[in-house]
């Protein structure tokens, strides 16, 4: 029996939320439902969340990944230094993903992706990308 138990995969946990002073909640709810349907334990910290809120939630819930949303254009400012804080908190290897309208105005996709990857984000989802489309990428990142 012990061997069977050992092969049982532990349910994956992902922390989601909307960063900064952003209150756009609709997409946040869609992401929550979508991930739940995949059997993921979703810890949704909701809108108006600080970097520290994401990190604290990830520590306590033993999260397998963090998915940051931002729609109001200030994502670049809000996300700066987040990976550094995660390293401080012992979450060096926890996958960090971001998606939405993450920069001001229309900017070159490649540059934006590079900017966020340099900031320590493992995956960057650009405007127009649907959660359903990028779901396989997210699942792979959290080891499903």
């Amino acid at each position, binding site marked *: 029996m012990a061997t069977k138990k050992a092969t049982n995969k532990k349910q994956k946990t992902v922390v989601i939320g909307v960063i900064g002073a952003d209150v756009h909640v609709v997409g946040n709810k869609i992401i929550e439902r979508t991930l739940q349907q995949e059997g993921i334990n979703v*810890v949704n910290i909701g809108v*108006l969340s600080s970097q520290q809120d994401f990190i604290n939630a990830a520590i*306590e*819930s033993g999260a397998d990944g963090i998915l940051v949303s931002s729609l109001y254009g200030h994502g670049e400012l809000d996300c700066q230094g987040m990976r550094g804080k995660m390293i401080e908190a012992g979450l060096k290897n926890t996958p960090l993903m971001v998606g939405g309208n993450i920069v001001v105005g229309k900017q070159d996709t490649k540059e934006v992706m590079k900017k966020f990857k340099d900031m320590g984000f493992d995956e960057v989802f650009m405007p127009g990308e649907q959660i359903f489309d990028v779901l396989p990428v997210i699942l792979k990142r959290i080891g499903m």
Partner: protein
Amino acid sequence: MNLILCVDFGSTYTKLTAIDKDSETIIATAKSFTTIEDNIMNGFNKAKAELETKLPKKDINWVAKLGCSSAAGGLKMCVIGNVPELTTDAAKKAALGAGARILKAYHFEQTEDDIKEMLDLNADMILLAGGTDGGNETYITANAKLLAKCKFPKPIVIAGNKSCQKQIGEILKKAGCKYYITENIMPQLNALNVEPARETIRKVFMEHIIDAKGLHEAINLVQNEIIPTPLSVLNAAHALATGSDTEEGIGELVIVDIGGATTDVHSIAKGLPSKGDVSYKGMEEPFDKRTVEGDLGMRYSAKALLEAVTTKRLQKYLNELGLKMENEQV
């Protein structure tokens, strides 16, 4: 005359109150110094004798005897959690709600020096928390291993991630530590579940602490059990606010208990905002909540109070009252 006897074994005084059950009025009060060094009952008997002089000479029927205690420092605890704003905060809330004085709150992984500090602080009990259910196991397990390694001699209440509670229990059992497993104080992120932990702390207080504090004789005196004094205040506040099956309560309330050394604030309230357009952040608050200002009081901490108020503001206040006092006098 059907009377209820209430006894409060305080750090300085043992206070007795006689309440007439039928008219629901306080008939008499008396106090005497708490005699924890020799026999707690000496002080009690002295106060009881004084109380009896104030009562009618005949037809006295004691229908109930209730007791609480903050003698020998009350219930002193250290709490350990993960994140300061999450499980550590929840652990603090649980311990405060159980009537404890929190000596120190620790977060994340501890060191042997921290455990030594807990012993030096002379904590009566440790509350060990950390992780949501199914969540983080790293810190709570590491801390349990360390407590086991140090053969921690005081009771440990485990109220963390349920996925590893049993395993932690085994670790402590092997080391011969006294431990009690209860429900997680934060089963989901920001969701508070302090009642089971509070109940377990109360039980451990009864089983271990009362005896250690020389209160065993007092147990025989009272009907049920002796609980920490702040818990009895919180229970009283709850009863006053919510009422009983037959009587309406007075509704949400705040009680400020200004003591000699500390000031306790008890609130029985949901504390919800009055406007609808408010977004909730962070940890839930318990309905029955107690917080303590550890260094503001009327006697031992009067100096800290003066420092907080500042002589300038005190002078201003005295002026408003028409009183004058030189700075030296203040």
